[in-house]
């Protein structure tokens, strides 16, 4: 039997620190979905401003493009790339969930279950995506040659 999430005793609220619970706002699973969707959405639109501006800068000459790519290889940008992937993934999957809930042709009595299902899917895809992002295993011919002793890096 599925017990609907009623607040203070839910998995989410048990995990939250006390100051959140004492703030007067009652956090539910839906609140987490809502806050995460807004935070990732705002982060993504700010990223896109930056992204279009940097593309514009790099469009001036091939040399400028190379400089930008070189900068983007540095570790801070790698962290940013992973955060971007995570944010994009959550925003896209939760967006699909919102559309399902909005346009569902039957009563959706399992909103919270649906969100947790999408959260698990999101976590799975995140881990699956992190492997090529970190290892670049998708470029086997290049990877095999990366390990030349003395050469390369």
């Amino acid at each position, binding site marked *: 039997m599925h017990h609907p999430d009623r607040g203070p005793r839910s998995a989410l609220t048990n995990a939250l620190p006390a100051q959140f619970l004492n703030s007067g706002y009652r956090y539910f699973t839906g609140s987490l979905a809502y806050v995460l969707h807004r935070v990732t959405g705002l982060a993504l639109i700010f990223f896109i401003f930056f992204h279009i501006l940097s593309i514009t800068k790099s469009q001036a000459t091939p040399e400028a493009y190379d400089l930008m790519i070189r900068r983007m290889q540095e570790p801070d940008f790698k962290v940013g790339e992973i955060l971007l*992937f995570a944010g994009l993934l959550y925003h896209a999957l939760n967006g699909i969930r919102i559309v399902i809930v909005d346009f569902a042709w039957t009563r959706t009595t399992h909103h919270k279950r649906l969100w947790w299902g999408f959260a698990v899917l999101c976590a799975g895809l995140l881990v699956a995506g992190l492997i090529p992002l970190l290892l*670049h295993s998708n470029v086997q011919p290049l990877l095999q040659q990366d390990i030349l002793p003395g050469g390369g*890096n």
Partner: protein
Amino acid sequence: MAEHYISSRAGQVQWIMQRVSAILLVGFAGIHFGLQHFTSDAVSTGLTVATRLNNPYWQAYYIVFITLVMYHGINGVVGIIRDYNPRRSLRVPAEFVLWSLALFFVVLGMRNVTAPVPLGTVKESYAARGFPKGESSGNPPTFAIAYDFRDELRELALMEYYLEHHTNRSEGAPLAEVFAHDPAVRLTTMKPEDAEKRVAACGEAFDRWARNVMTNGPVDPQRRQRLTTFSSSYEFAVWAANVRMANAKLRADQATIDRWSTNVSFSLRPYRATDLH
């Protein structure tokens, strides 16, 4: 609780359009991010990007994508503002600024997509100066920052990538014959000097192939394809020879310099931005 994240006061049209653009964006953003981060495109030079931005189909793709992204993003921020129910004198100017910002970035994005650096200019740039350090968004697993395609092995791997993915090959040997290295042989199991010799032999074999292709002469202009980076093996070989020379000079690889400057009966034509490709 129906989760209408945009206030119901935002209007039915904005509400439904936010969902419609969201569904489209899942596809558009998925293809864009996947291509840039999960395919072999992630380990390529600006030539790959220039090829894409000079392709009318990709230009159309990015015009639609940028417009959808700015609409969806700014409509979302406007929805958030309306959720806080600000007074009209704040809300109206804030929304005006946001939509102006959207228009500005759409125009900027369109300009980037519709007026890219010409492919010939990018080719000429690499042919003249070779590949620089850090010439890729793909990082080796060690998180090493420098990813230097002037290194002969990386250079050859990149040449293989371009010949396979960005050349309309009408003639010439199969890739395995062009690039004499066997992927099954692990270079790490070799002594460093043996591995270096092997790479040098691969470079020599590649130069031999390029020279042979160049003796065939350019292909019939009628058979050239403008949508590929290189319309024939000949175009690729001329470009690759120029890049190999530039890289060899940068890493002081005398053998490759000699091979191209003395043992060739014809001179290398410089690659020009105005050349057909």
